[in-house]
């Protein structure tokens, strides 16, 4: 089992969800985050003072998948989330030692979907 964490643009979330649906992957956790990177920030004005907030609104999705699903998940996310403009985001893959379904107490691979 691995965890896929993707930082994407908020507006592509729906498309990513659909792409994952096609793979029959439905378990996922979504977070509202702010990202800093190559993308330039947004300027806020306040009575003549301006602040450039370097952080842009991003959405982070986290999904734990079976090792064999990893590649198709990565490519599904990458395609659905890509606009080609700076700021499209990243996908990170991290190891998972254990997964437990709270409702049933099941552990391991079967607890995922």
């Amino acid at each position, binding site marked *: 089992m691995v965890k896929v964490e993707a930082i994407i643009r908020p*507006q592509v979330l*729906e498309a990513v969800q659909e792409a994952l649906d096609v793979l029959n992957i439905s378990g996922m956790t979504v977070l509202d985050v702010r990202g800093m990177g190559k993308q330039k920030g*947004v*300027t*806020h*004005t*306040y009575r003549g003072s*301006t602040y450039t907030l370097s952080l842009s609104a991003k959405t982070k999705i986290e999904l734990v998948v079976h090792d064999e699903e990893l590649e198709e998940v990565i490519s599904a996310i990458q395609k659905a989330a890509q606009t080609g403009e700076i700021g499209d985001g990243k996908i990170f893959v991290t190891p998972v030692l254990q997964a437990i379904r709270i409702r049933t107490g099941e552990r391991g691979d079967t607890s995922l979907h």
Partner: protein
Amino acid sequence: MMRRTRLISSLSLLCLSAFSLAQDKAATPAAPAIDKADQVWVIVAAALVLLMTPGLALFYGGMVRRKNVLSTMLHSFIMLGVVSILWVVAGYSIAFGKSTTGWFGGFEYLFGNGISMKDAYPYTEPLGTVSAGAFMLFQMMFAVITPALISGAIAERMKFSGYVLFTSLWSLVVYAPIACWVWNPGGWLFKKGALDFAGGTVVHLASGVSALVICIVLGKRKSVVNNEPILPNNLTTTLLGAGLLWFGWIGFNAGSALGMGDLAVNAFAVTHLAAAAGMIGWLVCEKIRHGKATALGAASGLVAGLVGITPASGFVGLPESMLIGVLAGVICCLAVNLKNKLGYDDSLDVVGVHGVGGMLGAILTGVLASGKINPAVDTALKDNGGRGGLILTQLIAVVTVAAFAMVGTFVILQITKLITGIRATPEEEQLGLDLAHHGEAGYNL
């Protein structure tokens, strides 16, 4: 609003009779002086209508997505700035200057010149009982809110500079002439005997059909094209806005009596009942169709009821007002789904509520107006050769106002496109107009 003035003034004369009896020589019926109580009411009513524009800002502002809330609110607020000035500079004169043609007023009041704070507006017969200044202010608030109503149709995608230019021109070239037709004692619809107590055609129909044109010309929002879910950022704001609109609308309709007498009291009562019935009508309609009565439905329904009663508020009684309200609530509830069928993107349903509701109200006014409530209806019936003729006149008013507003809007939009452009760029739309155009976020919570 002039038509009713005739009546009001005569009523006032009656009311004053107790005193008049004593004033034996007040015989010349010419000029009843300014009546302070009438003027207090009209001034208070003007203040109430003033508050409607911030109310509208909230009503609309709550419905858009978070990233466009300030842009949407500004669409209303900026009208308080721009149109107020334009009205004094030229709009009032175009609307209420002496009209010989019946299509527009005169030029005697340009730059606020000659608007008396002491004497009545001079072209009604008999004269009204409030000063021309008070009348001009009351009318100003109508001129301010009408283009702001349109802004709901173009929310989340119009360029700010284009919006300001468009509404400025629209205010002078579309609104002021229509106000002349319907309310100037020399206006051709006024003379024809068309009935519009507080603006069913001038305010709601005109803004509603202009909204239709502008949202077709602008095209759909990117997110509507992409079928993204669009959820209102803050419905508590919308409910507050609806509450302020209801409050202000008492001034809008009952203030249109231009004095305090039975007409004003009746207008308050029918306005209130229509709002109540509109709310219930919409809620029942959506409960049946979609299974749930919503807060937005309550807010929308009360506004629909208010729109529906507006032209009729000086001409119908309590039972008719409930009928108009409930019809407006139900029909507007159905009408807001038209856009999905017909494929235009009317962001906040100006067409479905103000266009449809205004038209409905104007026609129902012809059908239900009663001489018992307002003797002016008897005159109108006589002038038009009976009920059928009156309804026909109302239809003529609807059609000509709608046609003129639509053509006017289309032409002004083309001019605006050339000068400033009208549509935000896709990037601006994506980022949100608040940050893109105004450099601000509505909330930093």
